[in-house]
């Protein structure tokens, strides 16, 4: 009771002023780096998975489908844990070394988010590729373009542009999801806020501030995406 009163009776927001450099230059920098790299990796891998799924070749579509369904059936936190604790042992087993290989929290979380988000991005890119009329790839083929040339110059650029707003919206979700790396004790934005909060005993101030920052960034990003949506549309 006494502790509760001491914690809530007087808010002291100066804790933010004292720690903003740490919060943003350490925490937010990490969050944004992870978001950007995982989004790029996820879109590239997701596009490949989508192409596998639509390839019409034997086996590949089933493999891609199984991967996507598997990833989408697991809670993200579990995947983060799983990778962090098990990958060193799997790596050890693969290369046959004596000790578990060192992956590091950052690499581990980057790989995890890339693989996890690829499942979601692949579904977006699959819809994007399917939205391009069949005649486009027929025209590309008729001109003598190979499958990869047709994909690279004709189909994917259009699919990507059509899907850009959805891809960015998914990236905003990814930005929020990166806060789950706290389970690996990584200092992302939320992790940094959490550490300051506990060190200075200012839980409410710090978590309110963190919530406001996440909200502001996501809200502004969503507005920008909506504005972008109107500009990138391809006139047909």
């Amino acid at each position, binding site marked *: 009771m006494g502790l509760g009163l001491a914690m809530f009776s007087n808010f002291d927001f100066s804790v933010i002023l004292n720690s903003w450099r740490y919060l943003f230059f350490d925490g937010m920098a990490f969050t944004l780096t992870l978001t950007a790299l995982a989004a790029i990796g996820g879109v590239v891998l997701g596009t490949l998975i989508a192409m596998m799924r639509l390839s019409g070749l034997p086996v590949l579509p089933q493999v891609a489908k199984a991967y996507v369904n598997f990833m989408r059936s697991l809670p993200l936190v579990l995947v983060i844990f799983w990778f962090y604790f098990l990958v060193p042992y799997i790596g050890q087993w693969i290369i046959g070394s004596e000790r578990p290989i060192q992956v590091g929290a950052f690499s581990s979380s980057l790989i995890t988010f890339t693989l996890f988000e690829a499942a979601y991005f692949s579904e977006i890119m699959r819809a994007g590729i399917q939205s391009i009329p069949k005649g486009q790839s027929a025209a590309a083929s008729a*001109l*003598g373009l190979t499958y990869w040339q047709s994909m690279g110059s004709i189909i994917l650029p259009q699919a990507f542009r059509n899907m850009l707003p959805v891809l960015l919206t998914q990236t905003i979700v990814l930005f929020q999801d990166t806060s789950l790396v706290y389970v690996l004790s990584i200092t992302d934005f939320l992790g940094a806020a959490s550490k300051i909060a506990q060190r200075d005993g200012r839980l409410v101030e710090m978590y309110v501030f963190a919530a406001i920052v996440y909200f502001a960034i996501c809200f502004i990003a969503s507005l920008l995406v909506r504005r972008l949506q109107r500009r990138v549309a391809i*006139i047909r």
Partner: protein
Amino acid sequence: MTSSAMPPVSPVSEPQAATDAAPGTGPVGTLLTERPPVTATTGPMIAIDDVSKWYGDFQVLTNCTTSVTKGEVVVVCGPSGSGKSTLIKCVNALEPFQKGQITVDGTRVADKKTNLPKLRSRVGMVFQHFELFPHLSITDNLSLAQRKVLGRPKAEAEAKGLALLERVGLKAHAHKFPGQLSGGQQQRVAIARALAMNPIVMLFDEPTSALDPEMVGEVLDVMVELAREGMTMMVVTHEMGFARKVANRVIFMDKGEIVEDAQKEEFFGSPRSERAQTFLSRILSH
């Protein structure tokens, strides 16, 4: 002309002059700035031999056999669903077929060893819905395949594209995007795009069917010009005026079969089959 059951057909409206700088008025006045590349064989340019195709249990093509010789203009007509578009798409292997043989300039299209992209780059195709690439400018639409497939340098490819664009009367639109052009203009760009690859033969799949009536003429003008310059052409169309004007032969298809394959005069004068007579009387009666 021998007496026939068909009433003499009145001339169908001639292709009207294009509104937007008549095609074929460029400095050279031709669409083919150079002779079509030398062909490999002296045989027919396209030989279709006993081709059959099924979608599951449904047979769309039944034992189709015909050929197109160099410099010939062959019009393929018939009611919708008769398989004419499917047949023309088999020629450059956009559609696979299960039985028979098609050779283009001596190369078997269904052979696994055939380098399809290379073969297709020598066969120009114009589609019903134009299929310009909407995310690329007209200039890029014209030069992309030249650069990627033929390995032409950027400057050369763009110059070639621009020259052809001028000949179809659209030079002023080079910087625009396909969505900014009318249907007729887009289709003329599509023809120029195919010609930029120096094809040995051109395939047209209902090139005017998706156009507003007032734009049909400007596209047909370009095609007539092309035919007069000696391009080998296989044209799926309902434009009997075009067939009458430039075709050498007319193929009539119905229910996946080639019902009639005759010289133009013979086809329009006295079609042998009842189905062709019915089709002609329907299409020409109004």
